């Protein structure tokens, strides 16, 4: 879809839920071709993905609703293939082809 060269990009889906979709063109699911390595040649991690999403996919100027000080802001859960990223190594998890990464804002209303 994005003219990726075969080895340099990782095809993944990125989902937003709990209101975060509003920051990303009101779309709940995005297909993303993530560069396989970061600027230093290291494998793409979730930390790198978060930075990439801010720079390339976010439509909304309110980046602080998604990241604070280069980390995901408190109150957002990150799920790797539907499991809490704490089970997968958090920011250091290395993204695999066809991974689904879900960002969901925790809710408090009732």
């Amino acid at each position: 879809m994005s003219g990726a060269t075969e080895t340099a990009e990782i095809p993944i889906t990125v989902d937003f839920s709990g209101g975060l979709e509003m920051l990303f063109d009101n779309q709940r699911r995005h297909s993303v071709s993530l560069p396989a390595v970061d600027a230093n040649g290291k494998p793409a991690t979730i930390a790198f993905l978060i930075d990439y999403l801010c720079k390339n996919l976010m439509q909304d100027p309110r980046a602080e609703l998604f990241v604070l000080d280069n980390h995901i802001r408190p109150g957002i859960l990150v799920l790797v293939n539907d499991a809490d990223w704490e089970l997968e190594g958090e920011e250091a998890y290395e993204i695999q082809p066809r991974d689904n990464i879900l960002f969901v804002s925790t809710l408090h209303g009732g």
Partner: protein
Amino acid sequence: ANGCSRRLTDDEFDRYSRQMIVPGMGKEGQLRLINSRVLVIGAGGLGCPAAQYIAGAGVGTIGIIDNDVVEASNLHRQVGHATSRIGMKKVDSLITHLKELNPLPTYVPYPFQLTPQNAADIISKYDLVMDCTDNPVTRYLISDVCVLVRKPLVTAAAIQKSGQLTVLNCPPTPQGLVDSEYAPCYRCCFRKPPPPSSMVSCGEAGIMGPVVGMMGVAQAGEAIKILASALHMPVAKNVGDNNTPEKNLKQPTLLIYTFDLESAVGPYSFRALKMGGRKRNCFACGENSTLTLEGIKTGNPDYVQFCSAPAPVVSL
């Protein structure tokens, strides 16, 4: 009246027969419900349906705590209230409705706020807590007290077109016992609240009635399962039967519901997310936790400050 093997009255039998014949319920499950005490914290969009279905099912004692009064703008989603009861305390309005639905349970009204000072006294009188509140301050307080007085917690939340639900601290395990075998608390799953700037209430952001309704009914469903099947009984007390906690209690499922106004129910309307087990470094239940009931009563931690602090600035 406390016996788990007494006969059911004719009245009880008439009323509960349709759920007693469901495989897995039976008279045993029904008596467990009748002998159970559930605290519903919040009598709003979640608390109304949650209370309706546990009252209908015959939970014996139902406490309801809420400081608010019924307003017209509540009624599109708070189906246990009524136009004629606008201005009445929500607790009294909801109990009026529940008594009409089922007069057999004992209903206990708490028409005031849950506070760090009163939380432990109230919560310790119950077997299970349903968090149906609308703010993080109360959510963290409820979970902390549930850890300390060892109560299972069925928590849900909803806003706009999204809902969330999970079962926590079930079966309850003493603070400081850390091992992946134990069920997490609210803080294990949701370590920090969002900064206040990113939070909005249902009043400000809006809420679709069926979204919060689904989550409230689901809370009742989880509470009924836990109490009727005794899933909340500590494993150690059940030596002899093989009642080890289910994996989806130790690593609970966070159910998320997304209501899309532009399309029908679809493949992603519901997602089941796998959360981790108890966290070794959890502020509330972890191995070096300093959380105590006495501390909570005297303002430590300070829940309001915890939930209103801007996120710390970290230079990397």
